């Protein structure tokens, strides 16, 4: 029979936490072939093949249905597919990989506490600088969707692939949309989260690809796996 492919993060903290989670459920995960390989298996689940994939590529694999299941952060899913709810199914939150996607502005902007205040402050900013405030982020789709839902359009996105929280101080953006766990890094960079600026409270999820080929046998393997992880 065809195997069920489960994509898990190939490195970093998310990979360690994924392995720990399987261990807690009494499932031993091991790599097949040589130690640096990108395939693995779960002991006692011969129907499942594990693919070690980088977190950002897991979203793409789930989108296309080239894997059946994947473990990754909701933030990465939402960013890479605006129509996530039709393309994938969130089967289970996993209790790790917590990250809030937030809007943060310089803490000294005492006239700005909400998105509505930001909209008001954007007008005099444009008069003074000849352009709209810039938002540094790697979450371009999430940012657009969130601001559009608030009716705020007077900004310009600057794509940032790292050290986003430093961009306001560096003068390359006025505010940011980024992930935070404790808010400590934001504070250290002179930023504050807007009162209504928490866009998404993300964590790692077990996610199913709706576009993958789901035979009745694979559906039953999926259900067994979810039951074992929930026990």
């Amino acid at each position, binding site marked *: 029979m065809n195997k069920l492919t489960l994509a898990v993060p190939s490195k970093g903290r998310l990979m360690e936490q994924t392995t720990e989670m399987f261990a807690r459920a009494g499932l031993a995960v091991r790599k097949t072939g040589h130690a640096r390989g990108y395939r693995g298996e779960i002991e006692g689940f011969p129907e499942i093949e594990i693919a070690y994939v980088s977190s950002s590529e897991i979203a793409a694999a789930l989108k296309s249905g080239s894997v059946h299941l994947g473990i990754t952060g909701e933030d990465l899913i939402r960013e890479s597919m605006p129509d996530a709810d039709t393309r994938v199914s969130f089967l289970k939150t996993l209790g790790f990989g917590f990250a809030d996607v937030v809007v943060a502005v310089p803490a000294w*902007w005492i006239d700005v506490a909400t998105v509505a*205040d930001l909209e008001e402050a954007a007008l005099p900013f444009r008069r003074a600088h000849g352009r*709209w405030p810039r938002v540094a982020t790697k979450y371009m789709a999430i940012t657009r969707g969130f601001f*559009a839902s608030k*009716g705020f359009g*007077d900004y*310009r*996105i600057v794509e940032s692939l790292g050290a986003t929280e430093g961009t306001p101080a560096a*003068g390359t953006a006025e505010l940011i949309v980024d992930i935070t766990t404790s808010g400590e890094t934001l504070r250290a*960079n002179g930023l504050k989260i807007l009162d209504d600026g928490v866009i998404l409270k993300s964590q790692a999820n077990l996610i199913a690809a709706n576009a993958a080929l789901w035979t009745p046998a694979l559906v039953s393997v999926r259900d067994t796996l979810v039951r074992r992880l929930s026990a």
Partner: protein
Amino acid sequence: MPAETTQKFADLEAQAQVLMSVFTKAGHEAVAPAVIQPAGVFLDVIGEDLRARTYVFTDPDGTELCLRPDLTVPACRLHIARNAQAPQTAAKYCYNGPAFRIQPHSDDAMHPREFRQAGIERFGDSVREAAEAETIGLIVKALEAAGLKTWSLHLGDLGLFRSVLAAAGIPPRWQKRLAEAFWRRDAFRSELKRLTSAPGASARALPVELTAALGRGDNFAKENAVNAYLDAHGIAVIGTRTVAEMTEHLLEILADAEAPPLNAAAARLIESYVAVSGPARTAGTRIAELLKGTRGGSGLALDAYDRRLALIANAGIDLDRVTFSAEFGRNLEYYTGLVFEVTAPGLGPGSPVAGGGRYDGLVRAAGAGVDVPAVGAAIHTERLLSVVSEARL
């Protein structure tokens, strides 16, 4: 939809020749701006909504570029490049070429990712209404030359809206804010509601010790008070925004708190104006009624409205085909005065066959450094071809 068959390609080419020949005969020079444009000027001018629909990419040395989402901004850049010393020089251009937009829902025949615009732009005209009426007249002439028989013309006027705000007798800073919010219907309504009910709401969220300090001394002292407050709380000033800018904004917020709410009559006038919609001649009469008894200032804009309508009639356009809507023009951010659209039966209201207007601020934003009177319009050539071909069947 891009021409997928050689027949359709040939038809589009033939149609473009007809359109361009009408434009060039009227004294518009044919130009071909670059398809790939620097992204910055578009993104600063058109706002994030259209940016989300613009194909932006980075070349190997890090320059942000885009596939042009329209030909108006490229035409402005071309005009500036040619007249760097005197961007106010009068000039008339026409073009025919592809533009590109991401279609968030789907790439259908009426909303293709890649489409060809044929259009005209004119810069530096001092006689505004005449330039506008000529532009409309020329677009209609070109559409008819290409075979379009049935059409209607819809007008809007953002200059008239600003005059109505002035006539309503409200403080200039509120006029400015309402005019800027006009682009977004919801933001506009909530701003109008805020000014009518609780203009002081934002001020209540500010720290009391700071608002007290901002009530004393000159602007320099006020800015120092903000600095002192930030120092006292150990908050570092970072980024491009300055303390002077924020102080000014804080003072605006406090002034709002002092000011009496917008009076009901002024709010009613604004709402009644925004609701005006109908045949262009009766709309003019209705606006004149609304403005009767208000302070002066609106007379000029209303005169311009009437004068423009007369000029449009002189250009050979049957005014029975012309409607006006005060709200029209809201999602077209760079227009500053007249806006217009030509629609054809069968295409639906969301798919005009041509559109344009006045955009006096765009040439400055594109790098000229000064405002240059500018008016222009473009024809959506695939839509035109589809309407005309259907009619021939």
